[in-house]
């Protein structure tokens, strides 16, 4: 059986949501091992086992949290050379991308990014990645020596606990971490707290684009979102313009979301953006340009002025809720 490894990013001992998605995919492909690094990582073992990890490597050195990528790459290299897995999957996250890319250069192996699916094919792997904003699905096969490294987009797989199987076997590691070479070191962490639900978890998202005209017009989005219990998102144009912090960005370089309802306000629907939201069950768009590509995706599109319609919509929602 193929050895399939999952790079299990954890935050204070809790696996990131994408890790459970990776495990769900990995256990269908082979015998699954998770690698969980950083302080508190051992606390994640139960959850990792529940989603299909048969074995978990744990190393709790604080360096894995304080230094970008390199300690994880050093350790993964040692473990991969010892156990020789066939495939290693990573979440397409900030850290996942740094670690997987560095590792591919270290090992001289194939790295396939932006994947939404991995299947077996003729004794190897076939990896599907969307291109051009998801309008094209490209299938790639790794050719270099094993293991193939694959970065899987968050929300590409629905996480489901494994039906059977017991607790994962745990191997605690304590190899020294080389901190002597030049590294990128985290000095401190800042959170830009948004009110309401997290974008990644929200069932409803109200999202704004350049068509809002000015940063202060996001206030009406906040109001609408509060009425609907929704999270607020933004397009790249808005984030690049500095109207909203990066943590709001939905799309290729931002977050991938899959809400039940996505309300796009003043968003034209550039592929950069739609790749991150076209998985929404229902899309509603309001935009003044009837030619905006967002209308090709929307279940309901309204051609009109967001500055006029959104305040009216807030009133409509309030009055209906009042009934």
């Amino acid at each position, binding site marked *: 059986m193929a050895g399939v490894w999952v790079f299990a990013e954890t935050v204070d001992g809790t696996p990131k949501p994408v890790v459970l998605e990776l495990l769900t995919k990995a256990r269908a492909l082979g015998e699954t091992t998770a690698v969980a690094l950083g302080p508190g990582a051992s606390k994640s073992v139960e959850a990792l086992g529940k989603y299909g990890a048969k074995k978990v490597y744990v190393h709790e050195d604080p360096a894995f949290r304080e230094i970008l990528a390199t300690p994880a790459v050093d350790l993964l290299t040692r473990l991969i050379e010892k156990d020789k897995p066939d495939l290693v999957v990573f979440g397409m996250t900030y850290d996942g991308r*740094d670690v997987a890319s560095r590792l591919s250069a270290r090992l001289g192996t194939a*790295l396939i990014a932006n994947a939404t699916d991995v299947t077996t094919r003729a004794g190897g792997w076939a990896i599907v990645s969307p291109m051009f904003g998801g309008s094209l699905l*490209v299938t790639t096969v790794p050719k270099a020596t094993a293991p193939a490294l694959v970065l899987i987009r968050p929300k590409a797989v629905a996480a489901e606990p494994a039906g059977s199987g017991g607790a994962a076997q745990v191997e605690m590691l304590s190899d020294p971490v080389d901190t002597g070479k*030049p590294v990128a070191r985290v*000095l401190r962490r800042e959170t830009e707290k948004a009110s309401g639900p997290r974008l990644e978890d929200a069932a409803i998202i109200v999202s704004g684009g350049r068509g809002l005209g000015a940063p202060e017009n996001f206030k009406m989005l906040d109001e609408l979102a509060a009425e609907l219990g929704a999270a607020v998102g933004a397009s790249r144009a808005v*984030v690049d313009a500095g109207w909203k912090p990066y943590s709001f960005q939905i799309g290729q370089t931002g977050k991938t979301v899959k809400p039940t309802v996505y309300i796009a306000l003043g968003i034209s629907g550039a592929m*950069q953006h739609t790749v991150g939201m076209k998985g929404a069950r229902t899309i509603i768009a309001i935009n003044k340009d009837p030619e905006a590509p967002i209308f*090709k995706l929307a279940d309901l*599109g309204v051609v*009109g002025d967001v500055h006029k319609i959104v305040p009216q919509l807030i009133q409509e929602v309030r009055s209906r809720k009042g009934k």
Partner: protein
Amino acid sequence: MNVLVCVKQIPDPNAPGKLDPGSKRLVREGVDLVLDPGDEHGVEAGLQLVEKDAGEVTIISMGPLKALEAIRRALAMGAHRGILVTDPGLENSDALSTARAIAAAIKGKSYDLIICGTESTDGSSGAVPAQLAELLGLPLLSFAKKLEVAQGRAVIDRQTDDGYDVVEAQLPAIVTVTGGINEARYPALRGIMQAKNKEVKQVGLSDIGLDGQAGKAALTQEVIDATPAEARKAGEVVEDKGEGAKRVADFLKELKVI
């Protein structure tokens, strides 16, 4: 302070891309090619650093001869010189092969800082900067939305899921910059004229010692299929004549959102 900025020429992102059905590669003929808009922020970041301090910004790109135009654009913005890694043997390079070619092309040169975009707008795998960092043995400061360099160290604000981390590394280092880091300048006419006389060195595989070890000969992966994704069907589009908000609210009610 000497800065190297890696850039890529890509098909105009405002015109949707196409794959050649036979080779499964990007169609480059008949489409406008531009300097990747993400890379303009890298060039701008480099220029700001040398304007504050002293030194030069060198632009490097790998691609066909036509990629010279992308380098010229960066030179018109104010960069000082360019290197184009170009060779028929580099066609079809994957990310790792690209990183190896760039690493080989700058061997023996010393830059205090290497700046890249976080990812190209067309391929968007975002692998090359970290691979380059690994090949050169340099620390990588990735996803920077703010960059400061002082006393031999670079400090960035690195974007995260819910905010940013302040991360530092000793120089030399590699930084990837996001679009939010700066407003890229527009080349002035004077800059465009001056760019024509700036040196752009062209190097091939034999110059950088990678004959037979790059491009097709060193592929780690192969695209075997490309099919159009199932498109979402467009729904109803209505023009707002005063009833738009009501129509949306009705729909939200149907969806049991309210």
